[in-house]
């Protein structure tokens, strides 16, 4: 992506003329506005941005962006986006997806795109419910959750998206509340800058079918006590009074209070998002209290297209075939007079 001579955009330049049709009060509006604010900061030309989505509420996203976009079929956006990026690595390619789209019907593509590490950005709108089909449980719904397709309570244990993603080899994983546009904007910019597949899970409230599902984590009055917002190189500290932190006790993360039992800030773990070994990142994404947010993992690795490009250059340099005719007339041919 060329960063020179890009005209200065404002968020309005990225809004399409289409009326936004999500339910009033939906966090999707926050994500849309955060994206429109993040794009001018990325230094990328509007014509080089492509949004690809599957099916679901979140997947209407491309229609609202004044960029290139494709609203495709259920679960397949990672495959389609991979094709876009491989055809033209100069593009900034975004996959907009939901918990059902990415982890139920599209589960196979989701894990493989993370494994390959193509330079794509995936924004996962996790609302722990199916919205567009009007309220069935999703692969992230909780056990016991009552939905239209589980009137007596859900009996299927959920995925933790970060756990699944890191298990599939994700190099970049971030989690963020759906009600903090500033944080979302910042994380989108960093995901764009990251070379490789980046996955951003947004804890997105569905006002109609699962209202308040993240209130105990994301509400303004609890979020500082219930979340730990991780920053690379900084101690793992949280709480309204900045007095809580995380240490490693044997094989478990443990919450401690600074000033109690002789604990000082020096005893706390320091977040290393760039560490290759994902063990600690896995522990962080599984943590129920506090819920880890921010960029949890950001490990720089060779991308799929860099590997392909290097091979192609090598083959081209060593090949005697410059045009297809060279191939067609090569080897065993014979002439009939």
């Amino acid at each position: 992506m060329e960063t020179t001579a890009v005209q200065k955009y404002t968020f309005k330049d990225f809004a399409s003329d289409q009326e936004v049709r999500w339910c009033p009060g939906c966090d999707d509006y926050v994500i849309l506005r955060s994206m429109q604010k993040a794009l001018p900061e990325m230094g990328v030309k509007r014509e080089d941005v492509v949004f690809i989505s599957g099916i679901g509420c979140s997947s209407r996203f491309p229609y609202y962006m004044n960029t290139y976009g494709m609203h495709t079929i259920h679960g397949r956006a990672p495959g389609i986006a991979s094709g876009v990026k491989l055809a033209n690595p100069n593009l900034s390619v975004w996959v907009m997806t939901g918990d059902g789209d990415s982890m139920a019907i599209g589960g196979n593509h989701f894990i493989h795109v993370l494994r390959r590490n193509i330079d794509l950005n995936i924004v996962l709108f996790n609302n722990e419910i199916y919205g567009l089909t009007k309220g069935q449980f999703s692969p992230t719904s909780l056990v016991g959750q009552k939905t239209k397709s589980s009137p007596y309570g859900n009996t299927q244990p959920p995925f933790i998206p970060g756990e699944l993603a890191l298990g599939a080899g994700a190099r970049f994983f971030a989690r963020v509340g759906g009600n903090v546009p500033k944080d979302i904007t910042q994380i989108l910019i960093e995901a764009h800058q990251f070379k490789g597949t980046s996955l951003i899970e947004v804890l997105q409230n569905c006002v109609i079918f699962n209202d308040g599902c993240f209130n105990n984590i994301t509400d303004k009055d609890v979020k500082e006590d219930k979340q730990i917002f991780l920053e690379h190189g900084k101690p793992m500290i949280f709480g309204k009074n900045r007095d809580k932190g995380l240490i490693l006790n044997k094989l478990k993360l443990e919450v401690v209070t600074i000033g109690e039992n002789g604990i000082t800030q020096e005893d706390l773990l320091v977040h290393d998002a760039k560490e290759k070994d994902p063990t600690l990142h896995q522990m962080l994404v599984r943590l129920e209290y506090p819920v880890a947010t921010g960029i949890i993992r950001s490990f720089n690795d060779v991308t799929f297209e860099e590997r392909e490009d290097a091979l192609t250059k090598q083959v081209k340099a060593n090949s005697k075939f410059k045009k297809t005719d060279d191939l067609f007339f090569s080897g065993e041919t014979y002439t009939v007079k």
Partner: protein
Amino acid sequence: MISDKVKLQPEVVEAVVIRFVGDSGDGMQLTGTQFSDTSAMFGNDIATFPNYPSEIRAPQGSLYGVSGFQVHIGSVEVSTPGDNLDLLVAMNPAGLKTNLHALKPGHTIIVDSDAFSKKNLEKAQYETNPLEDGSLENYRVIQVDMTSLTKEALKNVEGLDNKSITRSKNMFALGMVYWMYGRSKDYTIDFFNKKFKLKPHLIEANTKVLNAGYFFAETLELIPNAYTISPAKMRSGTYRIIMGNTATAWGFLAAAEKSGLELFLGSYPITPATDILHELVKHKHFGVKAFQAEDEIAGIASAIGASFAGDLAITTTSGPGLALKGEALGLAMIMELPLVVVNVQRGGPSTGLPTKTEQSDLLQAMYGRNGESPVIVIAASTPANCFQYAYEAAKLTLEHMTPVILLTDGYIANGSAPWKIKSVDDLPDIKPKISKYTSENWHPYDRDENTLARNWAIPGTAGLEHRIGGLEKDSITGNVSQNPENHQKMTEIRAEKIKRVQNYIPDIKTEFAETGDLLVIGWGGTYGSLHSAVKQINEEGYKNIGFAHFNYINPLPKNTREILTKFKKIIVCELNNGQFAKILKINFNGFEFLQFNKIQGLPFGNNELIGEFKKLVD
């Protein structure tokens, strides 16, 4: 030992059909390929057909582990791998048992008599040894202790284990057949020199065994060099032997170069289509992006993405894979993006007969998607013209902005034949519908007034930012539209767009007779079988039997009705239960379409076709 129950008459023949059979590890495919390539270099026309089991290595000696390779060589035009055999080379009892029925009475069998052990006979379910019980007395049987003679030939070669010694006995058989048909060994010896460059002892061993077989046949004066097959009269030009799947891959290479686009393949391995992937991954020097995806759906999905981003995008598969791709193909269709889906058909339904041929995906190709979703459907009909139709599929998809399904099948995909090499300069132009920014008034669904193709606006082009997708779109603005009249209008436009392709494809021609008693209709990979059967029956004195073979299925050629009216009877011959006949019935009222259907995983035989045609005209 040679049985002389059958008197051999020295003869000069126009064409012979030879089949090499043995265990799946006996190297029969290699033996057959060497023989056919050598014959092509000699100037014969050839057609080949490999027949192998779906197991990679079935239990040794078993009936279902038999692998075969058939080659038809001629001094005249050869259009099929042949029907009945002139020579059967059987490396074991199981091979003999499963293939004897195809040999013409009085013709020759060469067997490795060493392989006719008690154990192998049992595995082949022979109660008595057919070499001894008189059951082969209607044939000329040449028994050769091939395994022992191979060992003998190699006794002074160092560095060979027992397994490699036994495995080279196929070269003994090949040497014998080279001598019988007056072929040079040079091509195969060159092949050894290249293949085993770093293993000189294998060059020595294989060459020795090939020579041993050749001289053994010469020494056995009982085998007269009876068959001389002169070079065929072929059109002048430079040729090479090509397999159908390779020809398909190369057709796309040529189309990419001609159109100035990069070629993207998204694919998932599936028999018998995988060789197209194997071929295209080699060609990074032309910038080919061949992407092996996690499944069939991701294969087509990645191709759709690449197409949106401006590549010539294709996906390759076989029947079950096409079923999986159906939804995504509908998406490409409603988004009106260029995309070629190659379906190398195999026996179905479900997993069916993966290594056998059939034409039973035609209706799936036509209708296997939700909603009203017509696409262009074309079919290649010979191994060599897979090149032409792959090129044509690319041209049609890029110029008409709609997906194209290219049907081939296991028979022509794995078969090989001489291909008169096409230089890219001599191929028709391909003009993709790429838009450049012109005015504010641009819309993604602006159409060419003749073809109705929409224009192709590629990401990276400033001013043409737009959104497309699987939801119905307004016919003018391209925005999402639920408007009832608009949906009907768009449905009709997409159908009309396919229909108008008729103006850009050639008329159907009848061969042998333009009018008469019987019109034989075929499509796709049965061209060779049907052509040679109709040719033969006309040569036998039936002068008024015509033949029309379809490569364009959707839309059908404009003049199709016209040719139907010229014949008293029409018979549609297909390797399925009558799928093309159904399409003709839907399209053309007032005709009776008789059917000849074969669903055995095998191509048509000449005799069964001629028998059927005679019943209709006698």
